[in-house]
């Protein structure tokens, strides 16, 4: 249990890096939700946008993460600070699950329910905010959950461009060929991912119960 002792010895730094990690993941997921949910709504309502939007998000997903960080490095304002860049990259990766689940969720709302609402004279806006989005919420949330879990993992790579986070330990450990340092980064990251997954899972379940 060398790594455990290492963590205890360096607990301040571990906590600080965990905080950075959380910040990267939190901000990027938030951005991805803010962009991705409206896009998902858009493609659920007008099929014409379906292919370009989902296609674009798919393509982003296929770019290797290190390469994406590299691509973005020369961009003027972004490249100036590594965390901005990391957040942008993580946001892009988180988009696909969120867009896709929003789309699936809204399309999955019982057509009869929507039609009943429409038949009673609800406007499209009322339908969206009072019926479709609330009913799709658990599916959308499971998309967010996937995005968070992916981001927690990906954020470790952000350390390669100096954006901080638990990846610092991992890269340092790799350079030093020291397991305990690698584990001091990897294990908290894994716990973060599991914790986020569990927490959001509970939230999702409570929404579904209604």
């Amino acid at each position, binding site marked *: 249990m060398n790594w455990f002792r290492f963590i205890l010895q360096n607990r301040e730094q571990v906590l600080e890096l965990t905080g950075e990690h959380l910040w990267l993941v939190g901000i990027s997921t938030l951005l991805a939700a803010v962009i991705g949910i409206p896009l998902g709504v858009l493609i659920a309502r007008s099929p014409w946008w379906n292919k370009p939007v989902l296609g674009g998000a798919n393509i982003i997903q296929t770019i290797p993460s290190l390469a994406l960080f590299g691509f973005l490095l020369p961009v003027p304002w972004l490249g100036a600070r590594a965390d901005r860049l990391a957040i942008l990259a993580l946001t892009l990766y988180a988009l696909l699950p969120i867009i896709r689940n929003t789309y699936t969720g809204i399309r999955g709302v019982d057509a*009869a329910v929507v039609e009943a609402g429409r*038949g009673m004279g609800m406007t499209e806006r009322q339908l969206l905010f009072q019926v479709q989005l609330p009913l799709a919420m658990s599916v959308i949330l499971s998309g967010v959950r996937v995005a968070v879990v992916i981001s927690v993992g990906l954020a470790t790579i952000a350390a390669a461009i100096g954006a901080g986070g638990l990846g610092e330990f991992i890269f340092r450990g790799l350079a030093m060929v020291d397991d305990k340092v690698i584990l001091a980064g990897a294990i908290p990251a894994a716990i973060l991912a599991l914790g986020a997954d569990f927490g959001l899972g509970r939230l999702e379940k409570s929404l579904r119960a*209604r």
Partner: protein
Amino acid sequence: MRGFLYFGDSVTDGDGKTTAAKQWDIGKIVADVGYGGVFDARFLENLFVGRYFQWLLHVDKFHLHFMGATQERCAFAASDAASAQSGGLREGESLAVVGVESLYLEGGAVGLGEQGDAPVSHRAVDVHEDECDLRGALLECCRNPGERGQRCLRKESSKLQSYCVGGKSGGRVAGNHGKWNSGMLADMPSTVAPANTGPVIEFCDVSYRVGDAQILAGVNLQVQRGETLVLLGRSGSGKTTTLKLVNRLAAPSAGEVRVRGVPTTEGDVIQLRRGIGYVIQEVGLFPHFTVERNIGLVPRIEGWAEEKIRARIEELLQLVGLEREIMSRYPHQLSGGQRQRVGVARALAADPEILLMDEPFGALDPLTRDELQREFLALQQSLEKTVVFVTHDLREALRLGSRVALMEGGRLVTVLPPQEFVRSTDQWAAAYVKAFGDGLESVANRGVS
């Protein structure tokens, strides 16, 4: 000013002449107001919001089923054993409601008359609450004719008499052979709007196609105020599409659908839909809304005051026979029958003139279905909405419809009253009747010969 209201198909005037009340505007209006269709929402509100409407509904609760609308006859009949035993109205007895100008303020009257070409006796009661509890008196009278209730009716009727004929002794309203003075009808409340007599819903040569598929072809159909038109047909015959054309969930490819004289493709579709109640199979309830929010949906999006919505919801729950306790439940916590009742209450929430019902009872077990059909009949006879009802069940169609429209392959085959439908020689109608077997005549006649 003195107004006079009368429910019924006919009255005898002072000279012994029998006149169809419905020919008089007021008769029509009252038929519209008291039992259904809206002719002027404001007048209706003045007249029947609150206690008057309440007691009419309460009367209904006590099994005084209003049998008349489809027969063009205003007859309340004690239609089940329970009320017959408790001394309810005799079978075929009619309930006439008469009133004075202050009806919507404080006065008014109810008369019980016997069915026939002319009402021969009328027991009337003042609505004035200080002197007589109308509801109590009426129920008392129904339960126990000759007892306290009737005394009350009789007592109040003398006052009514003076109301009616301005002190002259010509109109013997109560307890006697009615002599109805047409002069009583001279002064109408000025708030009364002229009754609109045109069809409420009209299909003019309507076709509907999706791509190459012709769903409906050349449908011509008129739905009159206060009637229940049943669209009958097998799956895929176009009945649901026909229904959706009314609230413009579908727009005709050719021809025109007119609602209250206005083509559905013109005007604000949202307003059109809010004026039409829509009931579909139980899935139409919002699963994430409580019963209370489901029922209050249209009033809320229409921006009613919160207290008004609450009051309306409670009224509706009572109307459809649901307990108050279920208000906070979610649809999945209800039984099928309860869900369907909530669906009906939701459709009625903003008091629409038109009600569209798409196989509302299709998913229910036979007993619950029978119960809901019975309640629907009672409800429809007290509210007299203009209803378009889709079903594939001939028995249901004959039982509920004032006319049955048979559809086949996107065409309207025939439109007939139930009694004629069972005897129709039309091949499709005959095929339908044959498939459902014997005993249909009695369903079609509904025990009313």
